[in-house]
């Protein structure tokens, strides 16, 4: 009896975890995508790359994961921003920070943009408009947008495209002697921020998403200078749940799942979700990001293995460590797109009808049916008394 009760408790707990996971599903549903409320697929920032090339730098960002549909795309009202902080002090003495983030930002609350690149796209994915502030020699900055092969090295996104923007920035556009860069990108729809990307595979991790029915902050919607306090707040909230789970025998079996999925890790608490690049060390994730970087493996080595797990779900061996199409040696560097084909309808459907059905069923069981039984019983007694 006790063991069946225990099994029931564990199942209930597992069910609550599944519900929590469902609630943050948009964060999990894609690998390199993390808006909690995905307004449209086009507002979904997927990748951010930054690396030196020749006498300058290349910046690439992608949106619209798993694209196979032909145009038009729903890009109206969307503005993509890439920000550079060129003033914040970064140190390179903390080996753990350097392995995970590329360095240590001494004062996260002081991170703010010195350079802003804003981009809008046409419905076919090509460049509609770009605006640069804070860069010198802007006439030499090259901006290109269009449909390209998804460069993310992750099998579920092989043979898929993205809407890519590639920007070539001459070194002369940056302040003379600039060695350290902090970068991040956001997307706004009609002026409201919807997504944020910085270090690869960071805020998309489930632990950064606010849990349902809590007032946890959404790190993904905050500027970097507000993210560390928000992550600390998130941590306080998660700690309360950890304490609860740790307290009871029946909840304790959930600890490993909780810890690996939702508990904040110590290294989350110090640095906002940004990309660090410095010319002091060789380029390659987490020092900037090259197109060829296997970030799935590299982030795993630094403590986050969710995408390694997901990439092995198909059972394929060995795990892919290179892109499914070779990159180009020259601008725009990303491989040509795959041929368009209509995207299959989503394999999932809304749970809301099921929930409504269950609520109605419970309503029937606990109100209408007892009322009807009572009514019938009273009616029969009344008839018997009359007879």
């Amino acid at each position, binding site marked *: 009896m006790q063991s069946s009760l225990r099994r029931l408790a564990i199942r209930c707990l597992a069910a609550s975890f599944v519900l929590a996971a469902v609630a943050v599903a948009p964060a999990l549903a894609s690998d390199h995508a993390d808006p909690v409320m995905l307004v449209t697929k086009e507002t979904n920032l997927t990748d951010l790359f930054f690396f030196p090339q020749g006498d300058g730098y290349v910046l690439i960002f992608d949106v619209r994961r798993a694209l196979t549909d032909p145009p038009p795309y729903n890009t109206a009202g969307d503005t993509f921003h890439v920000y550079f902080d060129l003033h914040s002090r970064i140190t390179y003495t903390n080996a753990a920070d350097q392995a995970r983030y590329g360095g240590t930002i*001494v*004062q*996260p*609350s*002081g991170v703010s943009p010195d350079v802003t690149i804003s981009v809008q796209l046409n419905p076919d994915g090509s460049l509609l408009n770009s605006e640069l502030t804070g860069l010198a020699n802007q006439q030499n900055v090259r901006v290109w947008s269009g449909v390209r092969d998804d460069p993310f090295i992750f099998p579920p996104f092989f043979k898929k495209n993205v809407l890519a923007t590639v920007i070539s920035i001459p070194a002369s556009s940056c302040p003379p002697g600039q060695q350290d860069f902090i970068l991040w990108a956001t997307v706004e729809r009609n002026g409201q921020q919807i997504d944020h990307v910085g270090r690869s595979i960071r805020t998309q991790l489930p632990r950064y998403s606010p849990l349902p029915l809590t007032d946890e902050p959404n790190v993904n919607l905050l500027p970097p200078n507000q993210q*560390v*306090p928000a992550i*600390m707040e998130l*941590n*306080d909230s998660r*700690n309360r749940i*950890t*304490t609860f789970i*740790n307290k009871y025998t029946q909840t304790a079996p959930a600890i490993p799942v909780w810890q690996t999925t939702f*508990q*904040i*890790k*110590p290294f989350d*608490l*110090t640095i906002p979700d940004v990309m660090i690049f410095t010319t002091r060390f060789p380029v390659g994730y987490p020092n900037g990001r090259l197109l060829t970087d296997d970030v799935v493996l590299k982030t795993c080595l630094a403590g986050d293995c969710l995408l390694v797990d997901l990439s092995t779900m198909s059972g394929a061996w060995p795990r892919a460590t290179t892109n499914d199409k070779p990159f180009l040696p020259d601008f725009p560097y990303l491989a040509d797109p795959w041929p368009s084909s209509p995207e299959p309808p989503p394999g999932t459907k809304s749970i809301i009808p099921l929930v409504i059905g269950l609520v109605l069923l419970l309503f029937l069981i606990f109100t209408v049916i007892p009322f009807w039984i009572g009514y019938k019983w009273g009616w029969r007694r009344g008839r018997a008394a009359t007879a």
Partner: protein
Amino acid sequence: MGVAARAGCDGVSRSARAAAVLALAALAGIAGAARAHDFWLEPSTFRPPPGSTAAVRLRVGEQFLGDPVLRSDAAIERFVVRQDGRETKVGGIEGGDPAGWFIVGGGAAVIAYASKPTFVELPAPRFEAYLRRYGLEATIAARARNGERNEPGREIFSRQAKAILAGARPSPGASRPLGLRYEIVPVGDPSFTPTAFHGRVLYEGEPVAGALVTALLRGDPRIRLTTRSDAAGAFAFALPRTGVWLVESVRMVKASFFSRADWESLWASLTFETVAPPSASGKHAPAQRPPE
């Protein structure tokens, strides 16, 4: 204050007995480490820039050489930082080292950690030796008066640790009590007085006379300064070197009537860093650190 582990192993196979002894020894080691030694706070830096994230480690050990103590919310009575006139909780991750994190404000930050009491029982000779070591002769005398000298020492103990992180300039906040039950309170901001440390010991807000206070310098076990507080609870050390200092004192009081222990000890500590005064260029010279 370590606890001797004894195990009755009759009827147990040799290997099982060996495993049990090993496990108990390990447990005793862990428990001993948690109980036996000094306890202090080690921030990631004693001079953090404003707006940075500071980590706080809990350390237990001897001679200012410590092992990590992982954060356990169940063991924490209070873990706060006071800066810019405001007190906030120091958050952290259960089971984590560092045990806490906070965002540094504009001036000096004083971190305070108080643990919940833990029970320990020690054989009489070891209990008395530890009382003697920490200058608690009054407790030895009280036990003798009550005919308890040969009785095991049953006590509950708690940690009352503080650390001061320097701001850009001396702060009056550094010398303000935080209300720990037993507390070492500096007079002035010790981060800016490299040659001397003046302080007071307070028990429940009142000065304690005759308390043994010890000062240790990180990285140099030869330096161990001791003194006793005066009637006003005041004491002072002439600091021979700059560096990271640990000042500590233990207070022993009778346990409450309802406690299963006879005694209650409160382990106060304060860590801070002194640096050489500014040179003509206006920059502070780095602390003198012995080679590690």
